[in-house]
């Protein structure tokens, strides 16, 4: 059983929602991710989306753009993200670790090599926002071959026949984009989120994990009623930007506990 399946099976048995923080690797400092992930896992986070910085993140809003610019200034490459994954495992992190990034750095690194090295590092899968299923055959084959999940997206704009096709190819979980837009904090969750999730649920038994716009404890609670997991990215990164360096790790952990209401 994959680490992702095991995690959701355990959480479902316990009746808990999975909180999946998004952290740009190498933000705010080059080594920050190595401290943040274990602390957030201890604080109750269940899976991690580790952002591979890219110069042109066209699905991301201002907060994640700033964080990836900073990470690039810190010299972070895909190779560093793979090394970070391995080092997190050495530090005893047990939660699933997924690398999230745009396709070009992965393509440049080599699809087969990237999958082989991610699996060897103890990573669990890829989240590639500019890679629709139509273009993903090669990456999906390599990922499967190395026991990795390639996470598929469903958006509010995805028509139902297409949801069925996506669900048929998906593994791990389905990333449900909560709104039409880029990543970033929002005041409230989209009104039609429940409806979108029901539409996806009709076509899959895979866990549904909601991302984009989740910023507050009440958002996480709302997602907990409707889906299996909640991704928090921009709100967390914006919080990290506010913290003094010596309060970074405990401050981030407290933010996660607050989101989970624990």
């Amino acid at each position, binding site marked *: 059983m994959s680490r992702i399946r095991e995690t959701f099976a355990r959480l479902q048995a316990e009746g808990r929602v999975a909180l999946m923080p998004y952290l740009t690797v190498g933000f705010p400092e080059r080594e920050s991710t190595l401290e943040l992930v274990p602390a957030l896992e201890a604080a109750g986070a269940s899976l991690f989306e580790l952002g591979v910085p890219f110069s042109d993140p066209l699905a991301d809003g201002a907060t994640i*753009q700033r964080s990836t610019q900073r990470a690039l200034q810190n010299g972070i490459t*895909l190779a560093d993200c793979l090394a970070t994954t391995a080092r997190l495992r050495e530090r005893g992190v047990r939660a699933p670790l997924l690398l999230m990034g745009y*396709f070009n750095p992965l393509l*440049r690194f080599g699809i087969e090599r990237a999958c082989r090295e991610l699996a060897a590092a103890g990573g669990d899968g890829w989240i590639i926002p500019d890679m629709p299923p139509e273009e993903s055959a090669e990456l999906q084959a390599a990922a499967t071959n190395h026991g990795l999940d390639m996470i598929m997206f469903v958006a509010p704009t*995805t*028509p139902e026949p297409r949801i069925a096709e*996506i669900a048929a190819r998906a593994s791990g979980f389905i990333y449900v984009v909560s709104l039409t*837009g880029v990543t970033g904090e929002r005041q409230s969750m989209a009104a039609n989120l429940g409806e979108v999730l029901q539409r996806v649920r009709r076509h899959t038994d895979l866990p549904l994990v909601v991302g984009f716009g989740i910023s507050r404890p009440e958002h996480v609670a709302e997602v907990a009623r409707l889906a299996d997991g909640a991704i928090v990215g921009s709100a967390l990164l914006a919080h990290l930007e506010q913290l003094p360096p010596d309060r970074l790790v405990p401050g981030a952990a407290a933010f996660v506990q607050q989101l989970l209401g624990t």
Partner: protein
Amino acid sequence: MIPGSAESIGTGRFGPYGGRYVPETLMPAVTSLEAAYQDAAADPTFWEELDHLQRTYTGRPTPLTFAARLTEQCGGARIYVKREDLAHTGAHKINNALGQGLLARRMGKRRIIAETGAGQHGVATATVCALLGLECVVYMGTEDMARQSPNVFRMRLLGAEVRGVASGSRTLKDAINEAMRDWVTNPDSYYLLGSALGPHPYPTMVRDFQSVIGREARAQMLATVGRLPDVIIACVGGGSNAIGIFDAFRDDSEVALRGVEAGGRGTVLGDHAARFLAASPGVLQGTYSYVLQDEAGQIALTHSVSAGLDYASVGPEHAWLHDTGRATYTSADDEEALDAFETCSRLEGIIPALESAHAVAEALKLAPTMHRDQIILINMSGRGDKDIFTVADALGVKI
């Protein structure tokens, strides 16, 4: 290939290049655009209306001019110029903007998003939106806004909202990112992409709307000179004017096709936009093509004196024309382009756009090496009024 034939829409792949690498949120918008274009392309009344507007609004066909004094100075091949600078709004960009504008109206769209580099596509889009009564938002890098301020003012006069983009290199690439972010937020808007770039169907559709340049030029060459040119030269940023003039000559194997990229201020990565000199295949902004990038796959910064050529990738069909050898690609640097700008102005009374000046520069190099009975055809993709401040600055003149 005739626009209007169903097969012209194709699969979105040119050899291995092209495709559609966009977020899931946009996939339905991209596929419905493909279906709408397929439908329009098969409808003769769509092309009739476009043709009518091209004649009565754009001023097509644009002339073919014999450049007698440039020819004389070079002392080699005879140089002809296809005058897209004389199209309404001063560049070839209106051909695509008009075609896509009619398509947007046919799809019932009310809000148009566009990006612009030199501002020519932004002006063309703002113009078409005024003509068709559509709302228009144009994204433009703040660096480009500074060097193309006349075009910013023109867009605003035409009723468009111009939004400055201050991220990255603050040029065309960043404007496209921001336009795509707007589109992902407003998938009911129509994204009027200005070059033969981006996800399928844009590279094909933009080529089809620009191919009027080559169809006219081919007929004009045959009618006035009685033969086809030996070489066609066009500048290549995204590559829409080049693919527009190349397309009609694709099967004329005796006609050499030559694209000219921006050599900028040097050959170090970051100092130029010569993709075929230094780039490798990659994915940027929805398409697989040649991309200027570093070893980690980060997109490189680019530089060119001309905003319209200052882009890290190139249209996927050019990548395939390059690999197959059907077209060859070379570059002219900033200095050569500025020299050609002045030479063309003084000898022909034609002030070329700085983009087009790169094509002129290549012609000035090539013509002396050719025989007097040979012919070069330059695509004069735009006029240079917008560039006078940049050129004055480069010449150290205060205006």
